[in-house]
Protein backbone atom coordinates (compact mmCIF):
# COMPACT_ATOMS: atom_id res chain seq x y z
CA UNK A 1 0.00 0.00 0.00
CA UNK A 2 1.33 3.42 -0.83
CA UNK A 3 -0.89 5.49 1.44
CA UNK A 4 -0.44 6.02 5.16
CA UNK A 5 -2.56 3.92 7.48
CA UNK A 6 -4.26 6.84 9.34
CA UNK A 7 -5.11 8.64 6.10
CA UNK A 8 -6.72 5.48 4.71
CA UNK A 9 -8.87 5.15 7.81
CA UNK A 10 -9.91 8.80 7.52
CA UNK A 11 -10.76 8.30 3.85
CA UNK A 12 -12.75 5.13 4.58
CA UNK A 13 -14.79 6.87 7.27
CA UNK A 14 -15.37 9.97 5.11
CA UNK A 15 -16.54 7.82 2.19
CA UNK A 16 -18.87 5.80 4.38
CA UNK A 17 -20.40 9.00 5.75
CA UNK A 18 -20.69 11.02 2.55
CA UNK A 19 -21.20 8.36 -0.12
CA UNK A 20 -22.89 5.48 1.72
CA UNK A 21 -24.85 6.84 4.70
CA UNK A 22 -26.25 9.68 2.60
CA UNK A 23 -27.86 7.11 0.28
CA UNK A 24 -28.92 4.56 2.88
CA UNK A 25 -32.41 4.71 4.42
CA UNK A 26 -32.62 1.42 6.32
CA UNK A 27 -32.15 2.14 10.03
CA UNK A 28 -30.40 -1.14 10.85
CA UNK A 29 -28.07 -0.85 7.87
CA UNK A 30 -27.20 2.73 8.89
CA UNK A 31 -26.45 1.53 12.39
CA UNK A 32 -24.14 -1.14 11.01
CA UNK A 33 -22.25 1.47 8.96
CA UNK A 34 -21.72 3.54 12.12
CA UNK A 35 -20.47 0.32 13.72
CA UNK A 36 -17.92 -0.08 10.94
CA UNK A 37 -16.82 3.55 11.34
CA UNK A 38 -16.41 2.95 15.07
CA UNK A 39 -14.17 -0.08 14.47
CA UNK A 40 -12.17 1.79 11.85
CA UNK A 41 -11.55 4.66 14.27
CA UNK A 42 -10.31 2.09 16.79
CA UNK A 43 -7.94 0.68 14.18
CA UNK A 44 -6.64 4.20 13.56
CA UNK A 45 -5.43 4.62 17.13
CA UNK A 46 -4.35 1.02 17.80
CA UNK A 47 -3.21 -0.55 14.51
CA UNK A 48 -0.69 0.10 11.72
CA UNK A 49 0.87 -1.58 8.67
CA UNK A 50 2.30 -5.03 9.31
CA UNK A 51 5.85 -4.86 10.70
CA UNK A 52 6.50 -8.43 9.57
CA UNK A 53 5.94 -7.57 5.92
CA UNK A 54 8.15 -4.47 6.11
CA UNK A 55 10.87 -6.41 7.91
CA UNK A 56 10.92 -8.95 5.08
CA UNK A 57 11.35 -6.13 2.55
CA UNK A 58 14.13 -4.53 4.61
CA UNK A 59 15.91 -7.87 5.08
CA UNK A 60 15.94 -8.51 1.32
CA UNK A 61 17.21 -4.97 0.75
CA UNK A 62 19.93 -5.35 3.39
CA UNK A 63 21.20 -8.62 1.83
CA UNK A 64 21.59 -6.80 -1.51
CA UNK A 65 23.30 -3.80 0.09
CA UNK A 66 25.74 -6.09 1.92
CA UNK A 67 26.62 -7.81 -1.36
CA UNK A 68 26.93 -4.48 -3.19
CA UNK A 69 29.13 -2.76 -0.57
CA UNK A 70 32.48 -4.25 -1.68
CA UNK A 71 31.64 -3.70 -5.35
CA UNK A 72 30.72 -0.02 -5.42
CA UNK A 73 32.28 3.30 -4.50
CA UNK A 74 29.40 4.81 -2.56
CA UNK A 75 28.68 4.48 1.16
CA UNK A 76 25.74 2.17 1.85
CA UNK A 77 23.76 1.88 5.12
CA UNK A 78 25.06 -0.74 7.50
CA UNK A 79 22.59 -0.58 10.40
CA UNK A 80 21.56 -4.06 11.59
CA UNK A 81 18.06 -5.28 10.92
CA UNK A 82 15.78 -4.21 13.80
CA UNK A 83 14.00 -7.01 15.65
CA UNK A 84 10.89 -4.88 15.83
CA UNK A 85 10.06 -1.20 15.51
CA UNK A 86 7.05 1.04 14.87
CA UNK A 87 5.87 0.94 11.25
CA UNK A 88 6.89 4.57 10.68
CA UNK A 89 10.52 3.71 11.54
CA UNK A 90 10.46 0.65 9.31
CA UNK A 91 9.00 2.63 6.42
CA UNK A 92 11.76 5.23 6.87
CA UNK A 93 14.35 2.42 6.92
CA UNK A 94 12.93 0.90 3.72
CA UNK A 95 13.04 4.32 2.02
CA UNK A 96 16.63 4.84 3.18
CA UNK A 97 17.57 1.49 1.62
CA UNK A 98 15.82 2.44 -1.60
CA UNK A 99 17.67 5.75 -1.73
CA UNK A 100 20.91 3.78 -1.32
CA UNK A 101 19.96 1.62 -4.31
CA UNK A 102 19.27 4.80 -6.30
CA UNK A 103 22.69 6.17 -5.32
CA UNK A 104 24.33 3.01 -6.66
CA UNK A 105 22.53 3.51 -10.00
CA UNK A 106 23.72 7.13 -10.14
CA UNK A 107 27.27 6.01 -9.35
CA UNK A 108 27.07 3.39 -12.12
CA UNK A 109 26.01 6.07 -14.59
CA UNK A 110 28.89 8.37 -13.60
CA UNK A 111 32.59 8.32 -14.47
CA UNK A 112 33.47 5.62 -11.93
CA UNK A 113 30.76 3.35 -13.26
CA UNK A 114 31.86 3.86 -16.85
CA UNK A 115 35.35 2.68 -15.93
CA UNK A 116 34.14 -0.64 -14.48
CA UNK A 117 34.87 -3.90 -16.23
CA UNK A 118 31.82 -5.53 -17.82
CA UNK A 119 31.67 -8.45 -15.40
CA UNK A 120 31.64 -6.28 -12.27
CA UNK A 121 29.13 -3.94 -13.80
CA UNK A 122 26.85 -6.85 -14.70
CA UNK A 123 27.17 -8.24 -11.15
CA UNK A 124 26.19 -4.86 -9.65
CA UNK A 125 23.24 -4.47 -12.02
CA UNK A 126 22.05 -8.01 -11.24
CA UNK A 127 22.21 -7.35 -7.48
CA UNK A 128 20.32 -4.07 -7.89
CA UNK A 129 17.61 -5.69 -9.93
CA UNK A 130 17.35 -8.60 -7.51
CA UNK A 131 16.84 -6.23 -4.58
CA UNK A 132 14.29 -4.08 -6.39
CA UNK A 133 12.37 -7.14 -7.59
CA UNK A 134 12.32 -8.59 -4.08
CA UNK A 135 10.57 -5.48 -2.78
CA UNK A 136 7.78 -5.53 -5.38
CA UNK A 137 7.44 -9.33 -5.21
CA UNK A 138 6.89 -9.14 -1.46
CA UNK A 139 4.40 -6.33 -1.96
CA UNK A 140 2.48 -8.34 -4.56
CA UNK A 141 2.57 -11.43 -2.33
CA UNK A 142 0.87 -9.40 0.38
CA UNK A 143 -1.77 -7.80 -1.88
CA UNK A 144 -5.32 -9.06 -2.43
CA UNK A 145 -6.84 -9.45 -5.89
CA UNK A 146 -7.81 -5.93 -7.00
CA UNK A 147 -11.52 -5.28 -7.51
CA UNK A 148 -11.34 -2.71 -10.32
CA UNK A 149 -14.16 -4.31 -12.32
CA UNK A 150 -16.38 -4.23 -9.25
CA UNK A 151 -15.33 -0.65 -8.44
CA UNK A 152 -16.18 0.40 -12.01
CA UNK A 153 -19.51 -1.37 -12.22
CA UNK A 154 -20.64 -1.35 -8.60
CA UNK A 155 -21.54 -5.02 -8.98
CA UNK A 156 -20.13 -8.16 -7.36
CA UNK A 157 -17.83 -10.00 -9.80
Amino acid sequence: MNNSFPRLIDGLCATLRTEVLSRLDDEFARGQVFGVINVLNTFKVRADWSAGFLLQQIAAQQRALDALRPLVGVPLPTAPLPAAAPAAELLARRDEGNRALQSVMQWLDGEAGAALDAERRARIEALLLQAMRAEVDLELKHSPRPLFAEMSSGREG
Partner: protein
Amino acid sequence: MSTIGSDEALTERIGRYLAAQMGRAPRIGRIKRFPVGFSWLTFLVPVDDRELILRLGPDDGLFAPYSAGPQVMAMQSLQGSGVPLPRAFWHSDDPAILGAPFLFSDKAEGEAVVPWVAPTEPPLEEGLRIRLANQFIDCLAALHRADWRGQPIAAMAGDVDEDNAALRSVQTWEALIRRWQMRPYPLADWGLRWLKSHCPRAPRVTIVHGDYRTGNFLQQDGAITAILDWELVHLGDPHEDLAWASMPMYKGGTPYIGRLAEPERFYGRYAQQAGITVDMASVRYYQAFSLLKLAATHMAAARCFEEGRFNDLRMPAMGSQIATCLRQMVKTIEAGEVKA
Protein backbone atom coordinates in the same frame (compact mmCIF):
# COMPACT_ATOMS: atom_id res chain seq x y z
CA MET B 1 -13.98 21.66 -6.21
CA SER B 2 -13.06 24.46 -3.84
CA THR B 3 -12.72 27.13 -6.54
CA ILE B 4 -15.62 25.84 -8.63
CA GLY B 5 -18.32 26.05 -5.97
CA SER B 6 -21.83 24.67 -5.96
CA ASP B 7 -23.79 23.63 -9.04
CA GLU B 8 -25.98 26.72 -8.60
CA ALA B 9 -23.00 29.07 -8.49
CA LEU B 10 -21.42 27.33 -11.46
CA THR B 11 -24.65 27.58 -13.46
CA GLU B 12 -24.75 31.30 -12.82
CA ARG B 13 -21.15 31.73 -13.98
CA ILE B 14 -21.83 29.61 -17.07
CA GLY B 15 -24.80 31.81 -17.93
CA ARG B 16 -22.73 34.99 -17.63
CA TYR B 17 -19.88 33.57 -19.70
CA LEU B 18 -22.06 32.16 -22.48
CA ALA B 19 -24.06 35.39 -22.69
CA ALA B 20 -20.82 37.27 -23.34
CA GLN B 21 -19.76 34.75 -25.99
CA MET B 22 -23.13 34.47 -27.73
CA GLY B 23 -24.12 38.14 -27.52
CA ARG B 24 -27.42 37.28 -25.85
CA ALA B 25 -28.55 35.62 -22.64
CA PRO B 26 -29.07 31.90 -23.28
CA ARG B 27 -31.41 29.75 -21.21
CA ILE B 28 -29.29 27.47 -19.02
CA GLY B 29 -31.01 24.34 -17.67
CA ARG B 30 -30.08 22.23 -14.66
CA ILE B 31 -26.46 21.11 -15.05
CA LYS B 32 -25.55 17.49 -14.34
CA ARG B 33 -22.16 16.17 -13.34
CA PHE B 34 -21.12 12.81 -14.78
CA PRO B 35 -19.63 10.52 -12.12
CA VAL B 36 -16.69 9.48 -14.32
CA GLY B 37 -12.98 10.15 -14.36
CA PHE B 38 -10.48 11.19 -11.76
CA SER B 39 -9.10 14.18 -13.51
CA TRP B 40 -11.24 16.64 -15.49
CA LEU B 41 -14.81 17.05 -14.26
CA THR B 42 -17.48 16.56 -16.91
CA PHE B 43 -20.87 18.33 -16.84
CA LEU B 44 -23.87 18.18 -19.11
CA VAL B 45 -25.11 21.74 -19.68
CA PRO B 46 -28.52 22.29 -21.30
CA VAL B 47 -28.27 25.53 -23.30
CA ASP B 48 -31.49 26.67 -24.98
CA ASP B 49 -32.63 23.64 -27.01
CA ARG B 50 -29.33 21.73 -27.12
CA GLU B 51 -26.91 20.10 -24.72
CA LEU B 52 -23.23 20.97 -24.36
CA ILE B 53 -20.45 19.23 -22.51
CA LEU B 54 -18.42 21.31 -20.09
CA ARG B 55 -15.06 19.95 -18.97
CA LEU B 56 -13.44 21.59 -15.96
CA GLY B 57 -9.88 20.95 -14.73
CA PRO B 58 -10.10 21.56 -10.96
CA ASP B 59 -7.08 22.77 -9.03
CA ASP B 60 -7.30 19.70 -6.77
CA GLY B 61 -7.57 17.20 -9.66
CA LEU B 62 -5.31 14.23 -10.22
CA PHE B 63 -3.05 15.90 -12.80
CA ALA B 64 -3.53 19.53 -11.73
CA PRO B 65 -2.56 22.17 -12.71
CA TYR B 66 -4.53 21.93 -15.94
CA SER B 67 -4.72 23.70 -19.25
CA ALA B 68 -7.53 23.31 -21.75
CA GLY B 69 -5.18 24.33 -24.55
CA PRO B 70 -3.84 20.93 -25.69
CA GLN B 71 -7.28 19.29 -25.86
CA VAL B 72 -8.76 22.23 -27.77
CA MET B 73 -5.82 22.37 -30.17
CA ALA B 74 -6.18 18.64 -30.85
CA MET B 75 -9.93 18.89 -31.39
CA GLN B 76 -9.54 21.86 -33.73
CA SER B 77 -6.65 20.27 -35.63
CA LEU B 78 -8.49 16.99 -36.20
CA GLN B 79 -11.77 18.33 -37.64
CA GLY B 80 -12.28 16.55 -40.96
CA SER B 81 -9.47 14.05 -40.30
CA GLY B 82 -11.71 10.99 -40.00
CA VAL B 83 -11.26 10.86 -36.23
CA PRO B 84 -14.72 11.16 -34.66
CA LEU B 85 -14.57 13.72 -31.90
CA PRO B 86 -16.73 16.44 -30.40
CA ARG B 87 -16.46 19.97 -31.74
CA ALA B 88 -14.80 22.39 -29.32
CA PHE B 89 -16.53 25.74 -28.83
CA TRP B 90 -15.20 27.99 -26.09
CA HIS B 91 -12.36 27.50 -23.66
CA SER B 92 -10.11 29.37 -21.25
CA ASP B 93 -7.49 28.69 -18.60
CA ASP B 94 -8.56 31.76 -16.61
CA PRO B 95 -9.90 30.48 -13.25
CA ALA B 96 -11.71 33.79 -12.70
CA ILE B 97 -14.36 32.74 -15.24
CA LEU B 98 -15.63 29.35 -14.02
CA GLY B 99 -13.24 28.61 -11.17
CA ALA B 100 -10.91 26.40 -13.24
CA PRO B 101 -9.62 25.89 -16.79
CA PHE B 102 -12.50 24.73 -18.98
CA LEU B 103 -13.79 23.90 -22.42
CA PHE B 104 -17.25 23.61 -23.92
CA SER B 105 -17.88 21.09 -26.65
CA ASP B 106 -20.63 19.21 -28.47
CA LYS B 107 -22.24 16.29 -26.68
CA ALA B 108 -21.46 13.01 -28.46
CA GLU B 109 -24.07 10.29 -28.25
CA GLY B 110 -23.25 6.76 -27.13
CA GLU B 111 -21.82 4.79 -24.26
CA ALA B 112 -18.35 3.67 -23.23
CA VAL B 113 -17.09 0.10 -23.42
CA VAL B 114 -15.14 -0.37 -20.21
CA PRO B 115 -11.85 -2.27 -20.11
CA TRP B 116 -12.24 -3.58 -16.57
CA VAL B 117 -14.80 -6.35 -16.35
CA ALA B 118 -15.53 -9.01 -13.77
CA PRO B 119 -14.59 -12.60 -14.67
CA THR B 120 -18.30 -13.45 -14.76
CA GLU B 121 -19.08 -10.75 -17.37
CA PRO B 122 -19.92 -12.27 -20.78
CA PRO B 123 -17.60 -11.23 -23.65
CA LEU B 124 -18.75 -8.72 -26.26
CA GLU B 125 -20.97 -10.24 -28.94
CA GLU B 126 -18.62 -11.36 -31.72
CA GLY B 127 -20.06 -9.19 -34.50
CA LEU B 128 -20.03 -6.11 -32.28
CA ARG B 129 -16.50 -6.85 -31.12
CA ILE B 130 -15.16 -7.03 -34.67
CA ARG B 131 -17.05 -3.91 -35.82
CA LEU B 132 -15.70 -1.95 -32.87
CA ALA B 133 -12.20 -3.41 -33.27
CA ASN B 134 -11.98 -2.29 -36.89
CA GLN B 135 -13.18 1.22 -36.09
CA PHE B 136 -10.94 1.44 -33.02
CA ILE B 137 -7.98 0.65 -35.29
CA ASP B 138 -9.13 2.89 -38.16
CA CYS B 139 -9.62 5.88 -35.85
CA LEU B 140 -6.10 5.47 -34.51
CA ALA B 141 -4.72 5.18 -38.03
CA ALA B 142 -6.63 8.33 -39.05
CA LEU B 143 -5.20 10.15 -36.05
CA HIS B 144 -1.66 9.17 -36.99
CA ARG B 145 -2.21 10.03 -40.67
CA ALA B 146 -3.42 13.53 -39.83
CA ASP B 147 -1.14 16.27 -41.12
CA TRP B 148 -0.63 18.41 -38.04
CA ARG B 149 1.81 20.87 -39.53
CA GLY B 150 0.05 24.17 -40.13
CA GLN B 151 -2.66 23.20 -37.63
CA PRO B 152 -3.17 24.71 -34.16
CA ILE B 153 -1.53 21.70 -32.49
CA ALA B 154 1.76 22.54 -34.21
CA ALA B 155 2.19 25.06 -31.37
CA MET B 156 2.98 22.07 -29.12
CA ALA B 157 5.75 20.73 -31.35
CA GLY B 158 8.76 22.39 -29.70
CA ASP B 159 11.89 20.70 -31.04
CA VAL B 160 10.37 17.21 -31.30
CA ASP B 161 11.53 15.15 -34.26
CA GLU B 162 11.83 11.48 -35.23
CA ASP B 163 15.14 11.12 -33.37
CA ASN B 164 14.18 12.66 -30.03
CA ALA B 165 10.44 11.85 -29.76
CA ALA B 166 10.97 8.95 -27.34
CA LEU B 167 13.44 10.83 -25.15
CA ARG B 168 11.23 13.93 -24.94
CA SER B 169 8.28 11.83 -23.82
CA VAL B 170 10.35 9.91 -21.26
CA GLN B 171 11.67 13.22 -19.88
CA THR B 172 8.12 14.54 -19.54
CA TRP B 173 7.10 11.52 -17.48
CA GLU B 174 10.30 11.56 -15.46
CA ALA B 175 9.38 15.08 -14.32
CA LEU B 176 5.86 13.90 -13.43
CA ILE B 177 7.23 10.96 -11.42
CA ARG B 178 9.50 13.35 -9.48
CA ARG B 179 6.46 15.53 -8.76
CA TRP B 180 4.10 12.74 -7.72
CA GLN B 181 6.17 10.10 -5.93
CA MET B 182 5.83 10.14 -2.14
CA ARG B 183 8.75 7.79 -1.55
CA PRO B 184 11.71 6.50 -3.56
CA TYR B 185 10.92 3.88 -6.22
CA PRO B 186 14.30 2.65 -7.46
CA LEU B 187 12.61 0.34 -9.95
CA ALA B 188 11.01 3.38 -11.60
CA ASP B 189 14.48 4.96 -11.83
CA TRP B 190 15.81 1.73 -13.30
CA GLY B 191 13.02 1.83 -15.90
CA LEU B 192 13.74 5.47 -16.77
CA ARG B 193 17.43 4.66 -17.11
CA TRP B 194 16.67 1.77 -19.49
CA LEU B 195 14.17 3.79 -21.52
CA LYS B 196 16.62 6.68 -21.97
CA SER B 197 19.36 4.36 -23.20
CA HIS B 198 17.16 2.40 -25.65
CA CYS B 199 15.18 5.17 -27.41
CA PRO B 200 13.85 4.02 -30.78
CA ARG B 201 13.58 6.32 -33.80
CA ALA B 202 10.01 7.27 -34.64
CA PRO B 203 8.80 6.36 -38.15
CA ARG B 204 7.25 9.85 -38.23
CA VAL B 205 6.11 12.46 -35.74
CA THR B 206 2.32 12.28 -35.35
CA ILE B 207 -0.38 13.48 -33.03
CA VAL B 208 -0.35 11.02 -30.12
CA HIS B 209 -3.59 10.75 -28.14
CA GLY B 210 -1.74 9.64 -25.01
CA ASP B 211 -4.62 7.64 -23.48
CA TYR B 212 -6.00 5.75 -26.47
CA ARG B 213 -7.78 2.71 -25.08
CA THR B 214 -11.06 0.98 -24.52
CA GLY B 215 -13.01 3.15 -22.11
CA ASN B 216 -12.05 6.36 -23.88
CA PHE B 217 -14.45 6.14 -26.81
CA LEU B 218 -18.22 6.18 -27.12
CA GLN B 219 -20.15 3.79 -29.32
CA GLN B 220 -23.77 3.69 -30.41
CA ASP B 221 -25.21 0.61 -32.12
CA GLY B 222 -21.73 -0.63 -32.99
CA ALA B 223 -20.49 2.68 -34.40
CA ILE B 224 -17.78 4.67 -32.62
CA THR B 225 -19.20 8.17 -32.21
CA ALA B 226 -16.35 9.92 -30.41
CA ILE B 227 -12.79 9.48 -29.19
CA LEU B 228 -12.61 11.15 -25.77
CA ASP B 229 -10.14 12.28 -23.10
CA TRP B 230 -7.51 14.21 -25.01
CA GLU B 231 -5.77 15.66 -21.96
CA LEU B 232 -2.51 13.76 -22.58
CA VAL B 233 -2.32 14.61 -26.29
CA HIS B 234 1.12 15.51 -27.62
CA LEU B 235 3.30 15.09 -30.68
CA GLY B 236 5.50 12.02 -30.78
CA ASP B 237 5.99 8.44 -31.95
CA PRO B 238 2.74 6.71 -33.03
CA HIS B 239 3.99 3.49 -31.42
CA GLU B 240 3.27 5.17 -28.08
CA ASP B 241 -0.50 4.92 -28.73
CA LEU B 242 -0.23 1.36 -30.11
CA ALA B 243 1.56 0.26 -26.95
CA TRP B 244 -0.80 2.03 -24.54
CA ALA B 245 -3.89 0.54 -26.20
CA SER B 246 -2.38 -2.94 -26.00
CA MET B 247 -1.54 -2.96 -22.30
CA PRO B 248 -2.55 -6.18 -20.51
CA MET B 249 -4.80 -4.37 -18.01
CA TYR B 250 -7.08 -3.22 -20.82
CA LYS B 251 -7.71 -6.73 -22.20
CA GLY B 252 -10.53 -7.40 -19.72
CA GLY B 253 -9.53 -11.05 -19.31
CA THR B 254 -9.70 -11.71 -23.07
CA PRO B 255 -6.85 -12.40 -25.52
CA TYR B 256 -7.89 -9.24 -27.41
CA ILE B 257 -6.25 -5.83 -27.38
CA GLY B 258 -8.65 -3.56 -25.51
CA ARG B 259 -11.19 -6.45 -25.34
CA LEU B 260 -11.63 -5.87 -29.07
CA ALA B 261 -8.90 -6.84 -31.51
CA GLU B 262 -6.73 -9.87 -32.10
CA PRO B 263 -3.09 -8.64 -32.07
CA GLU B 264 -2.62 -9.65 -35.75
CA ARG B 265 -5.72 -7.67 -36.74
CA PHE B 266 -4.67 -4.70 -34.59
CA TYR B 267 -1.14 -4.30 -35.92
CA GLY B 268 -1.87 -5.52 -39.47
CA ARG B 269 -4.90 -3.37 -40.17
CA TYR B 270 -3.31 -0.37 -38.45
CA ALA B 271 -0.17 -0.61 -40.61
CA GLN B 272 -2.28 -0.79 -43.75
CA GLN B 273 -4.55 2.11 -42.77
CA ALA B 274 -1.88 4.38 -41.29
CA GLY B 275 0.79 3.66 -43.87
CA ILE B 276 3.24 3.04 -41.06
CA THR B 277 5.37 -0.08 -40.73
CA VAL B 278 4.84 -1.29 -37.18
CA ASP B 279 8.15 -2.07 -35.49
CA MET B 280 7.45 -4.64 -32.76
CA ALA B 281 10.66 -3.73 -30.93
CA SER B 282 9.30 -0.17 -30.70
CA VAL B 283 5.93 -1.49 -29.54
CA ARG B 284 7.68 -3.44 -26.75
CA TYR B 285 9.74 -0.37 -25.82
CA TYR B 286 6.60 1.74 -25.56
CA GLN B 287 4.76 -1.04 -23.70
CA ALA B 288 7.47 -0.93 -21.03
CA PHE B 289 7.16 2.88 -21.05
CA SER B 290 3.35 2.60 -20.81
CA LEU B 291 3.65 0.45 -17.69
CA LEU B 292 5.94 3.08 -16.15
CA LYS B 293 3.45 5.82 -17.11
CA LEU B 294 0.65 3.84 -15.51
CA ALA B 295 2.75 3.39 -12.36
CA ALA B 296 3.29 7.17 -12.38
CA THR B 297 -0.45 7.76 -12.70
CA HIS B 298 -0.97 5.51 -9.69
CA MET B 299 1.65 7.53 -7.80
CA ALA B 300 -0.44 10.63 -8.59
CA ALA B 301 -3.57 8.89 -7.31
CA ALA B 302 -1.88 7.87 -4.05
CA ARG B 303 -0.61 11.41 -3.53
CA CYS B 304 -3.98 12.94 -4.34
CA PHE B 305 -5.64 10.75 -1.71
CA GLU B 306 -2.87 11.21 0.87
CA GLU B 307 -3.11 15.00 0.57
CA GLY B 308 -6.85 14.76 1.21
CA ARG B 309 -7.82 16.19 -2.17
CA PHE B 310 -10.26 13.28 -2.65
CA ASN B 311 -11.76 10.60 -0.42
CA ASP B 312 -12.57 8.44 -3.47
CA LEU B 313 -11.37 4.98 -2.42
CA ARG B 314 -10.49 4.07 -5.99
CA MET B 315 -7.46 6.35 -5.50
CA PRO B 316 -5.63 4.27 -2.85
CA ALA B 317 -6.70 1.15 -4.78
CA MET B 318 -4.88 2.57 -7.79
CA GLY B 319 -1.97 3.49 -5.56
CA SER B 320 -1.68 -0.13 -4.49
CA GLN B 321 -1.03 -1.12 -8.13
CA ILE B 322 2.33 0.67 -8.47
CA ALA B 323 4.24 -2.53 -7.67
CA THR B 324 2.20 -4.52 -10.23
CA CYS B 325 3.00 -2.03 -13.00
CA LEU B 326 6.70 -1.82 -12.17
CA ARG B 327 6.98 -5.61 -12.03
CA GLN B 328 5.32 -5.94 -15.44
CA MET B 329 7.57 -3.21 -16.80
CA VAL B 330 10.65 -5.24 -15.83
CA LYS B 331 9.19 -8.40 -17.38
CA THR B 332 8.40 -6.52 -20.61
CA ILE B 333 11.93 -5.13 -20.83
CA GLU B 334 13.47 -8.54 -20.15
CA ALA B 335 11.22 -10.29 -22.69
CA GLY B 336 12.32 -7.77 -25.34
CA GLU B 337 15.99 -8.14 -24.48
CA VAL B 338 15.83 -11.93 -24.73
CA LYS B 339 14.16 -11.73 -28.16
CA ALA B 340 16.45 -8.97 -29.43
